[in-house]
């Protein structure tokens, strides 16, 4: 293969792998921010919390990190349900959610980050799954399992979740709840219960994404910061409430960043990726997969 072409193909492939990691980090936000109208600025911090929990559990029990993340998911669901209950009680119920709610989630973010520094220190942590050093080669194309396994698991999880949201009563109620909570009550559906359940799912997804993240790269308590802009941009670009749109936008983001980095240097990649967001919003304000009302 022509070296230039090989560089491009490799940049696209690793961009897709990076993009599936972005999808993992953004999918939970597509639920909380996209569907529930809850601006959870702490989402990336919860991803990092998940990564640290996975480091502890997989290190302590000698388990595979992704399996550890799955075992931790119910705990993260409970954490999410708890956070939503507090958010609802102190802000949403009183109609204070717009500004005070945002401040609340900033607070949650800082508490998580400072808590992690106090417990684990500021050093980087990593895991070493059995497949970490294996890379498949197809001609000039590299497929490192360290990227492929978490990326594929993330996409499979999101696919299962999308199916759940589309085919179940609770899934449809989650999609409807932000549009008209009172109308849900008139169908015997308690909107607060639905939101609590869905927010729990979004935080469980953050925990799972943390497991995927720590397989790919070492993390420290502030690793979430580089994701804040990206995950919100991805959810907006994907059309807010659409998981398939979120995945597509995440893959596009990953490819745009990686191809730019391969040919023009990494410092250009955010500019190109966020430039793409502006273009999408200019021509499709509802996002790639957004439903026009």
């Amino acid at each position, binding site marked *: 293969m022509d070296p230039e072409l090989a560089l491009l193909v490799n940049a696209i492939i690793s961009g897709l792998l990076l993009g599936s990691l972005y999808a993992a980090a953004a999918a939970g936000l597509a639920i909380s921010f996209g569907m529930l109208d809850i601006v959870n600025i702490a989402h990336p911090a919860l991803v990092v919390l998940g990564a640290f929990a996975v480091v502890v559990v997989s290190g302590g029990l000698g388990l595979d990190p992704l399996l550890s993340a799955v075992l931790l998911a119910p705990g993260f669901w409970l954490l999410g349900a708890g956070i939503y209950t507090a958010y609802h009680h102190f802000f949403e119920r009183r109609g204070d959610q717009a500004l005070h709610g945002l401040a609340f989630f900033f607070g949650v973010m800082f508490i998580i980050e400072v808590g992690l520094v106090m417990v684990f220190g500021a050093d980087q942590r990593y895991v070493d799954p059995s497949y970490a050093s294996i890379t498949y080669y197809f001609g000039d194309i590299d497929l490192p399992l360290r990227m492929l396994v978490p990326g594929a698991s993330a996409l499979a999880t999101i696919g299962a979740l999308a199916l759940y949201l589309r085919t179940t*009563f609770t899934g449809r109620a989650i*999609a*409807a709840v932000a549009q008209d909570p009172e109308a849900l*009550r008139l*169908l015997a*559906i308690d909107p607060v219960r639905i939101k609590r359940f869905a927010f729990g799912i979004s935080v469980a997804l953050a925990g799972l994404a943390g497991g995927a993240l720590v397989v790919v790269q070492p993390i420290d308590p502030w690793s979430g910061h580089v994701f804040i802009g990206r995950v919100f941009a991805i959810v907006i670009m994907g059309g807010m409430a659409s998981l398939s749109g979120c995945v597509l936008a995440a893959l596009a983001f990953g490819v745009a960043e990686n191809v730019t980095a391969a040919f023009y240097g990494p410092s250009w990649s955010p500019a190109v990726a966020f430039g793409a967001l502006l273009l999408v919003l200019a021509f499709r304000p509802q996002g790639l997969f957004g*439903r*026009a*009302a």
Partner: protein
Amino acid sequence: MAGSASLTITGLHAGYGAVRVLEDVGLTVAPGETVALLGTNGNGKSTLMHCVMGLVRPSQGSIRATLDGQEIDLIGHSPEEIVELGIVLVPEGRRLFPLLSVEENLLLGAWRAAARPKRLANLEFCYDCFPRLKERRRQATGTMSGGEQQMVALARAIMAEPRLLLVDEPSVGLAPLLVARTMDKIAELQRRLGLTVLMAEQNFPQAVRIADRGYVLVHGRIEYAAASAAELNENQLVRNLYFGS
């Protein structure tokens, strides 16, 4: 789906803060009846509907439903509990989920425990009643016309297997021809399902066309109770309010 359902409201007072909206309202809806609650804007029709559904807590009075021979005091129950009993409101302004498709809206209607197992049969029934909705089942309801949205709202309520159906101002925002069609559909649903219907409406001639009886609500009080549609048509108060003569 039939089974008998009736509603009895006595001495109902309700308001918002210091504003009194309903004063000493009493009405009954007997099993299988279609009763019209007539009145122009701002006379308390919606508030009365919201009291029955548990969205507004009355300050005084009683609201009792009899469902299959069992009498239940509705006051103090949450809207979710009241819907679970089989009392379903088609709200004013339709209140659909605009980003969801027709079918997603309809299936949400079947959340009620008693309605879930029958959702596919009920969906068939709704599509049979409203063939247009079957054609458009994948369309987001926010992009539909007012008349089509009103069909979705009615069908969504039917998906909940109501025994007592409340309909709040189905004519709002619709062209006259569509108002007539909507009324015909309500009458058709009532007949085919054996429903008990209480309908709040300000389009007097159209409401009277399908109602068995009616009440006229003026400034939060029942000013007139008519024992038949013919009586409503001939009443002087109604003529003054609606026809200016």
